[in-house]
């Protein structure tokens, strides 16, 4: 398993690509709605490419915090964008908020990923089981390394899923309470309570280890 801190602050030149995300395009803006319209009715791949540029980083990050392994995060992110294209193209429902749609797709993809992983783990042969145990020993070692680094993301892993999601969406991605509520399909007051509890729990974890 890759340590998240391995990627952080690493100058991976993502923003220097020729399809750099247009920072000028806000999520849920009129421009974004027009691109969704192009995708839905003109099946325009270029329009979808622009939407991909805007969202790929944050969706990858969101997935990465949940699956930890970069290759898995990349596969899941690619799957999310492909499924979203199909959903926008075929669904009769209004796409009011692409941001929320992509995060929901990402959450579901991660759930599917773990479900599939559990099923695969149960069907391991003795030889595979042995290899897995050896892997797990490596994982344990890596976690120990992470604790040594003492950065906040290692404690995120110990939080409940929804605590981690609310902290990432609110503080990492910088979404407003309302936007976070839309993405997590909860009420704004519910998000405020969750955020308060998540922050408190994260603080407790950091103090315990500190």
């Amino acid at each position, binding site marked *: 398993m890759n340590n998240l801190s391995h990627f952080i602050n690493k100058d*991976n030149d993502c923003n220097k*690509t020729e399809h750099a995300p247009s920072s000028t395009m806000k999520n849920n803006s009129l421009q974004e*709605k027009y691109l969704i319209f192009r995708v839905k009715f003109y099946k325009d*791949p270029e329009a979808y490419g622009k939407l*991909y540029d805007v969202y790929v980083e944050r969706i990858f990050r969101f997935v990465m915090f949940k699956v930890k392994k970069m290759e898995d995060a990349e596969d899941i992110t690619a799957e999310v964008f492909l499924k979203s294209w199909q959903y926008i193209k075929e669904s009769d429902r209004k796409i009011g908020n692409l941001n929320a749609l992509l995060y929901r797709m990402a959450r579901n993809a991660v759930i599917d990923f773990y479900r599939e992983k559990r099923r695969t783990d149960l069907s391991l042969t003795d030889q595979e089981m042995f290899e897995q145990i050896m892997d797990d020993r490596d994982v344990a070692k890596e976690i120990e390394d992470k604790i040594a680094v003492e950065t906040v993301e290692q404690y995120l892993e110990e939080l409940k899923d929804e605590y981690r999601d609310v902290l990432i969406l609110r503080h990492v991605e910088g979404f407003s309470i309302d936007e976070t509520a839309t993405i997590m399909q909860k009420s704004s007051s519910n998000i405020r309570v969750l955020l308060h509890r998540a922050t408190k729990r994260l603080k407790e974890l950091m103090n315990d280890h500190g």
Partner: protein
Amino acid sequence: MDKMIEQLKELKNLKPRAEWVEKNRDLLLAQISAQAPAEAKVSGFSYLHLLKMSLPTRFVNFVAKPMGIVSLVLLFVAGSGALTVNAARESLPGSILYPVKLTSEQVAVGLTVSEKKKTELRVSLAEERVREIEKIMATAGDSQFKQQMLNMAADSLKKEMTNVTASLDKVKNDKTDQASNLALIKQVDTKVGELATRLDNSASENPEASKILSSAKDAVDAVSVKAVEVIVDKYDKGQTEISSQEIKDTMEKQVKKIEDRIANITDKEKTVAADVVAPIVAPSTDNDKVENPVVTTPAVTPEPVANSADIKKSLDEAIKLLNAGDMVAALEKMKESQSLSSQMEDVLEAKIKEIEASKSVSDSPVAPIQ
């Protein structure tokens, strides 16, 4: 706490590999391009969808949707009402939808603000009543039911005529836009004249109908006279540009109508007189042979208040006054003749009724005289 938030914010620096982003983009676009159809189907509905997408969700949920629902409900209510009214348009007296038709007509009159438009509308409603009468006359079937239908239509026509008279009174007192007022009165006079002719035609088809329609005809004639009265009044007060010749023509036309009516009444009178003169013989029995026929005489009929000669005299005076240029006095004489002819007709109708009543008595079986 702030440090923790700061650390969380720093996590934003976690980014995917640039080469993966690029490669995945190319792969994604290749995949979706393969799925995209050659020709996109775009319709007006698509742009409606774009508009819906562009509107804020809260606006759509709290303003646009409720407004849409209210509009739909209103459309449904108004639409269903409109459909019923439309269906009722062709209904005849006695049908379930006929009251709907009358109500919708009254609503239309009530919603009309201008008195002139109201008058025009009322005349067209009277035309509709006459059309109904013609339709009823054209239908075959139970004569009693037909009579009831005719009675209803005739009553409605009388009401409309009363309303037109009231409207004409209002127009008479209206001193604005005299030219259009005069045009309206002339129009009413012409249309009412047509209605009177159509009623006469309908009445001539059936004696029973004639009785029912006679009072409606009186009402129509009264409106015609009222129209002439308003024209003369406006002329007398100098409120119109109408020439004396035009007034004279209008009044002569009216006099002609009354003369025709008198002629009709006289014809009817003759027929009735012939019936009265002929002895009404009760059917005899075997024991009571032809030698002793039972002769019955009709009951005493009301004395006529005027005869055709009196009315003609009155009409002649009206024409004389007209020629002398005294329009007002001529009008009075004409009204007098009109009223007398109506009374004469009433008396005649009563006489006919009596004769028919005595006929029906004589037709019934009579016990032999011992």
